[in-house]
Every structure is written in structure tokens, then in C-alpha cells.
């Protein structure tokens, strides 16, 4: 700034993260410290998120236990309201967002050859907000009146009721937790985008980036554009709840519909924040396990941004039955259906990649295949729901619940599992047991179909969502769904057993156990603190060059040998 000479081109080697942090131990206790190493933060995110997956899963199993009989007999209906509110909030804000940020932290720097994130301390601060707002949200079980019962979308006027009159109530804590989650996510988004824009290895132009990085930019851009709108809506909600304003109260001239617009302007795109990185994971995994280049790489990359753009102009489809004018319904029906184009392009690209490939059915591949299979189903029910007449009929029924669980669990969480099975050896240095992994997949696949398919049927028959008791005619579908949910609970046992026992005493992982192409696989497993340190490779070809016989980086043999010798030396 003070000199007139142009700044030299950025050299990723100049950025050195302070690792190990002075005084931080290089053992498990580093996960409990304010560590600024992206790989430690990534694992911190993942472990925290998996803990909250168990919390959210437990809440859902209590709900399914309640719903196994038509009468409200296991829990009180008020408690049930709190259960589904907390289940949704925990799964989105404390499981999926954190675990995907874990992937971003682990994968982005090694994939682009950077030593760390652009802002390591901001990164650590963003992570440590997660346990803080997790505790705040969990504390709402302990305040008088219990947790918020307004659902994860917290529509007024239900969400601005405060019958007990306490300033600190379940809804207040909910808003606080969501606001902190938003701040943490924006800090993360600034970090991820800056890192990808500015810290790519020499030779890695935009169109040589792995698709995961493309989808990360596309997803984080949504965070930056959408989250502020949710924050604005939540601030107004907080004022109405706690400070006597009437933004959403018609008697003071306010309008509850405005909240719905603010909420869905972010919370519909939020689905794409979660699904885009999972599209990235699928696009990474299929070429590896089919031994073929990704079909239509450029189009798949660009389609991510088409999804980002379209996702910002579809939110009203959540409000078709909220008194929305007809012209608005028609407009948003069209934009919603348009989103099927870029997502369809991606699905075709994956099928094109698999076509004629030499498939290796590892656990990671099974979860990817299962995820895409479920996603196609969810895409079709999505198009049905985008259609105004169908949506007015089935909106707020179990059809919607079945649809979005097929997206959020059977696609996104499958992708998360696939990513864990694929990259676990890279970041822990240990192989997972394939047998337990396949058991996990089989139980999960059966469990998820058994849970979510009957929900579609119950919804089409007219069963409303968010009820603790229902008409006995829906009993069969609900018993199936409950059994499926308990099976999903059982499926986590081999998964957790596998993670813990493999990490402790699993077989040592070689640098590249899957014969994959990518900068992260040129590093030892686990990679050293600053990845390539002072020896960043120069990228000379695009990603996914399977079977093309051209090296990814200059001097590739040297990097392979270096990673192998680091493994044997350790």
C-alpha cells in the first residue's frame, strides 16, 4: 500500500499457519484447543457434528416412538412440538452445516495446494462458536416452558408467543443460537472463498480445480447472500418477541408474511448450501471408483453456479398456500422447475461417468450410488411439489416430510458418509474396515427407504405433518416409518464402532489407497501440518485424468515417492 511497485504474484508458500500452536499438544488434546490448523479444525467440526447427529437422531427416535401408535401416548403434544423443532434445528445447524464445513476445512487447502486457510484464526473462531451455540440451543430444554415449539421455520405469530413471560425462553435461545450459527457460517464463507480465490497452487486455473472446490464456492456464495436476509428476519423476530415491536403483528400494522419471505429467502437456498458440496463429493468419487474422467467437467462446474443463481429466486414455493397471489405462484413454479435443469445435468454427468466404467464397489462408492439413486427419486417428488396444484394439495403433509428427508438424509447424509469413507484414510492415516462399512450401508439403505417411502404415501392420503396423534387409517405407514427409523438408529452402531476402532488401531493407510488423482493424494496420510509446505507442486493438467496417462503435476513421481517415504519413515 505504501509503495508504488505492483505487488508480487501470490506465492502460497509465504503463508504459514502457526502449527503446532505454541503450547498445543500434538495428540488428541489438540482437538480441545484453539488450534488454527485447518486439518485440526476440520476434524473438530466433524466430531462435533457427529455428536449432534446422535442428539438429533435420538430426538427423531423419540418422535417415531410417539408416532408408532395413533394416540399421543408416549410424550405430551407440547413436548412433541419441542422435539420436532429441536430435531430440525439440530440436524441442520449443528450436524449438516458443521460437518460440511469440516469437509471444506479438510479438503479445500490440500486440493488446491494451499498450506492452510486464508485466515486461520478466523477459522478457529468460527468453529468454536459451534459448541457455544450448541450449548445455548440445548439449554432451551432447561428453561421454563421448554424449547421452542414453533418448528425450525419459527413462523410468527406462534414464535412470538411468550405465555410464561420470561425474558429468556426457548424461542429467545433458539433465535440467539441461529444468529450465532449465521455469524459463524459467514465467517467460514469469507474464509473459504478467499482461500479458493487467492491461494491456488501454481498452474491451477479455475478450470483445473476439483469440482468439490467449485461447489464449495457456489455453496458459500449462497451463505453470503442468503444468511444476512435470515439474520434481518430473525432480528425483527427477536424484537417482536422480546422488545414489544410489531413487525409481524397485524394489529400494529405489521405483516407475518414478511417473515416467511425473509426466512425462505435463505432457508430454501440453504438446502443447496448442503447439497452442492455433496454434489462435489459425488463428482470426486465417481471418477475414482469408475476409473474414468468426470463426464462434462466444464458443464458440471458451471452448473453449480446456475444452481446458486436459481436457488435465490425460488423461495416463494414454500408459501404457495400462505395467501400468495396467483402471478407470484406461477412465476415461482417456473423458476423452481428450472432448477431441475442444472441438477439434471449433474445427474447425467455422473451417469455418463459411470457408463462403461470399471466400477469398484467400496463403501464410499455404495453410499454415492445410493445417494444419487435417492436423489433422483427426491428430484421427481420435488418437481411434483413445485407444481402449484399438487403443492396446495399435499403442502404441510407427510409427503413434504418424506420429500425433504429423502433429500437431506438419503442424499446429503449419504454423500457425507461417502465422503467420510473416502477421505478418512487421508486425514487420520488409518484405513476403515470395509466389512463394517458395508454393513453400515446396507442397514442405512434399508432403514432410510423403510422410513421415508411410507411417509410419501401417508402424505398423499392426507396425513398432516407436525402432529403427535393421527387418524388410525395412517397407522400402517407410520409403523413402517418408525421401524425404519429405529433401524437407522441401529445402523449408526457399526458406523461409530468403525470410526473409533479404525482410528485407534486400524491398518495404516498408504498415501493413495484408492489410486485417486488429486493434489491431496500426493500428500502423506495424514498430511503434514502445512500440506506441501515449501514444495507446492505446479499443476499441469485438469483433474480426473483417469486412464488418460498424463501427470497431474510437474515432477509427479518425486511427490509420490516423497509421500511414500514419509509414510514409511513415520
Amino acid at each position, binding site marked *: *500500500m505504501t509503495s508504488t511497485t505492483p505487488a508480487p*504474484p501470490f506465492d502460497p508458500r509465504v*503463508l504459514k499457519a502457526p502449527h503446532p500452536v505454541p503450547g498445543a499438544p500434538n495428540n488428541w488434546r489438540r482437538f480441545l484447543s484453539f488450534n488454527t490448523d485447518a486439518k485440526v479444525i476440520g476434524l473438530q467440526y466433524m466430531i462435533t457434528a457427529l455428536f449432534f447427529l446422535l442428539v438429533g437422531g435420538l430426538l427423531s427416535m423419540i418422535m417415531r416412538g410417539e408416532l408408532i401408535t395413533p394416540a399421543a401416548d408416549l410424550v405430551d403434544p407440547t413436548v412433541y412440538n419441542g422435539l420436532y423443532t429441536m430435531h430440525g434445528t439440530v440436524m441442520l445447524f449443528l450436524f449438516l452445516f458443521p460437518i460440511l464445513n469440516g469437509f471444506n476445512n479438510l479438503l479445500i487447502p490440500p486440493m488446491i495446494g494451499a498450506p492452510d486457510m*486464508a485466515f486461520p*484464526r478466523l477459522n478457529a473462531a468460527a468453529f468454536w462458536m459451534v459448541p457455544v451455540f450448541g450449548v445455548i440451543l440445548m439449554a432451551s430444554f432447561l428453561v421454563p416452558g421448554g424449547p421452542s415449539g414453533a418448528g425450525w421455520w419459527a413462523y410468527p405469530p406462534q414464535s412470538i408467543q411468550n405465555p410464561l413471560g420470561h425474558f429468556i425462553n426457548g424461542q429467545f435461545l433458539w433465535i440467539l443460537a441461529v444468529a450465532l450459527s449465521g455469524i459463524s457460517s459467514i465467517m467460514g464463507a469469507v474464509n473459504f472463498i478467499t482461500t479458493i480465490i487467492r491461494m491456488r497452487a501454481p498452474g491451477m486455473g479455475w478450470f483445473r480445480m476439483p469440482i468439490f472446490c467449485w461447489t464449495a464456492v457456489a455453496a458459500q456464495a449462497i451463505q453470503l447472500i442468503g444468511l444476512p436476509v435470515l*439474520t434481518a428476519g430473525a432480528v425483527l423476530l427477536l424484537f417482536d418477541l422480546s422488545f414489544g*415491536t*410489531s413487525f409481524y403483528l397485524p394489529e*400494529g400494522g405489521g*405483516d407475518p408474511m414478511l417473515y416467511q419471505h425473509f426466512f425462505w429467502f435463505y432457508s430454501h437456498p440453504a438446502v443447496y448450501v448442503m447439497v452442492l458440496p455433496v454434489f462435489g463429493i459425488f463428482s470426486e468419487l465417481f471418477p475414482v471408483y469408475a476409473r474414468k474422467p468426470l463426464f462434462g467437467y466444464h458443464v458440471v462446474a458451471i452448473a453449480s453456479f446456475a444452481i446458486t443463481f436459481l436457488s435465490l429466486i425460488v423461495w416463494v414455493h414454500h408459501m404457495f398456500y400462505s395467501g400468495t397471489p396467483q402471478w407470484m405462484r406461477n412465476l415461482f413454479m417456473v423458476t423452481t422447475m428450472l432448477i431441475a435443469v442444472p441438477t439434471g445435468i449433474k445427474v447425467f454427468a455422473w451417469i455418463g461417468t459411470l457408463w462403461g466404467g470399471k466400477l469398484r464397489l467400496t463403501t464410499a462408492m455404495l453410499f454415492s450410488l445410493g445417494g444419487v439413486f435417492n436423489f433422483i427419486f427426491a428430484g421427481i417428488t420435488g418437481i411434483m411439489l413445485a407444481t402449484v396444484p399438487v403443492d396446495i394439495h399435499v403442502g404441510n403433509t407427510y409427503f413434504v416430510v418424506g420429500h425433504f428427508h429423502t433429500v437431506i438424509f438419503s442424499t446429503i447424509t449419504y454423500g457425507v458418509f461417502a465422503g467420510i469413507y473416502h477421505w478418512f484414510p487421508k486425514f487420520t492415516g488409518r484405513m476403515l474396515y470395509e466389512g463394517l462399512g458395508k454393513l453400515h450401508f446396507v442397514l442405512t439403505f434399508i432403514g432410510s427407504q423403510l422410513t421415508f417411502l411410507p411417509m410419501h404415501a401417508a402424505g398423499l392420503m392426507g396425513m398432516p405433518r407436525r402432529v403427535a396423534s393421527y387418524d388410525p387409517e395412517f397407522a400402517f405407514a407410520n409403523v413402517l416409518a418408525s421401524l425404519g427409523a429405529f433401524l437407522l438408529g441401529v445402523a449408526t452402531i457399526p458406523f461409530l464402532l468403525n470410526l473409533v476402532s479404525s482410528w485407534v488401531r486400524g491398518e495404516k493407510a498408504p498415501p493413495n489407497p484408492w489410486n485417486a488423482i488429486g493434489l491431496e493424494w500426493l500428500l502423506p496420510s495424514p498430511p503434514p501440518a502445512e500440506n506441501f509446505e515449501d514444495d507446492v507442486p505446479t499443476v499441469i493438467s485438469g483433474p480426473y485424468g483417469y486412464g488418460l496417462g498424463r501427470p497431474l503435476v510437474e515432477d509427479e513421481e518425486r511427490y509420490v515417492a516423497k509421500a511414500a517415504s514419509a509414510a514409511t519413515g513415520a
Partner: protein
Amino acid sequence: MTTTTPTPADLPAQPAAHGHGHGHADHTLTGFVIFLLSESVIFLALFAGYAIYKTSSPLWLPPGVEGLEVSEPLRFTVVLVSSSGVIYLAERALHRGRLWQFRAWWLLTMAMGTIFLVGQGLEWAALPFGLSDGVYGASFYLLTGFHGLHVLTGVLLMGLMLARSFRPGNYDAGSVGVTAVSLFWHFVDVIWVVLFVLIYVWQR
């Protein structure tokens, strides 16, 4: 993006301050601009909400309230907007290496921001309606208050930068903090101009 492969001999030429996890100076600005773009969306959302209420609410002005007086706030607006020019002079002085001149302009910018805040406080104290007087009162106080919070943040950040300017060798690794605060200040001013038009000019 073309990046040349540096030889090891290039490395010692990089400023030492970059070696301790502070992030690269250019990254800081990139990240800060991305953050400001995101922050501006909060204001866009609030502006959109205000416009919707203004045009569609059946109960807009609270009973007995005629509207807002414009001329007094206009004076404070002139003070705030012209402070954007003053902070530019400060930055230019710093780039030319005139440290005391920088501090003087910088302090003047802080003073102008403070005058604006005091003016807003006086206006709030004199208004006949409060936060809970319908959606009009709520919107007015929320928008001006949220913007005022940004002005206050800007003044405090400037104070921090001013204090840092007395640290020896503070600008050896560039003056990215000053550039970022100055960007923030221009942002706050632009937001105010839109806010002023929405709230004070667009009354009928």
C-alpha cells in the same frame, strides 16, 4: 490466473510479518470486501422490508404523528457524507508518508462520525413516538439504530487504527487495516444516503 513458480531465493524477500498466521495483506482486503458485500445484503433486506411496509401497511404513521422533520437530519447527513472525503484525504496523506497529517484527517473523520451520532441521539430524544408505536416506530428505530451501530463501530475501529499508528514500525508491512476501515466508512456512508432517501425524503 498465472502464477510464476518462485525460486527459494525469492522467499526471504517476502515481509517477515506474513510468517505468523496473520494472513496475506491482499487476502485481508479480499476477505473484507467479501464480508462487506454480505453485510450490505442485511441492509438490502431491511430496506426491502421498509419499502413493503411503507407501501402496504394499513396502519403506517402512529396516531398524532405527522412525519419526520428533514432539515436538521439533512445537516448531519452532510457532515457524515463529507467525512468520506476527509477519510480519503487521510489515506492519501498516509500513502505519501505524512503521518501527522494522516492522524489529523483521521481524527477529523472520527469527530464527524461522532457529531452524526450525537445528532441522531438528539433527534431520537425529541421524537414523539417510540419503538413500540406500530410498525412505523419499530422500522424507524431499527433501521436508524442498526446503521448507527455501524457508525459507532466505524468510529471505534478508527480509534484503534489511530492508537496503532503510534506503534513503531506499524506500517512496515503495509497499511491494510487503514484501507479496510476506510472502505467500511465509505460503506456506512453509502448506506446512510439510501436510508436517508427512504426514511426522510420518501414521506408522502
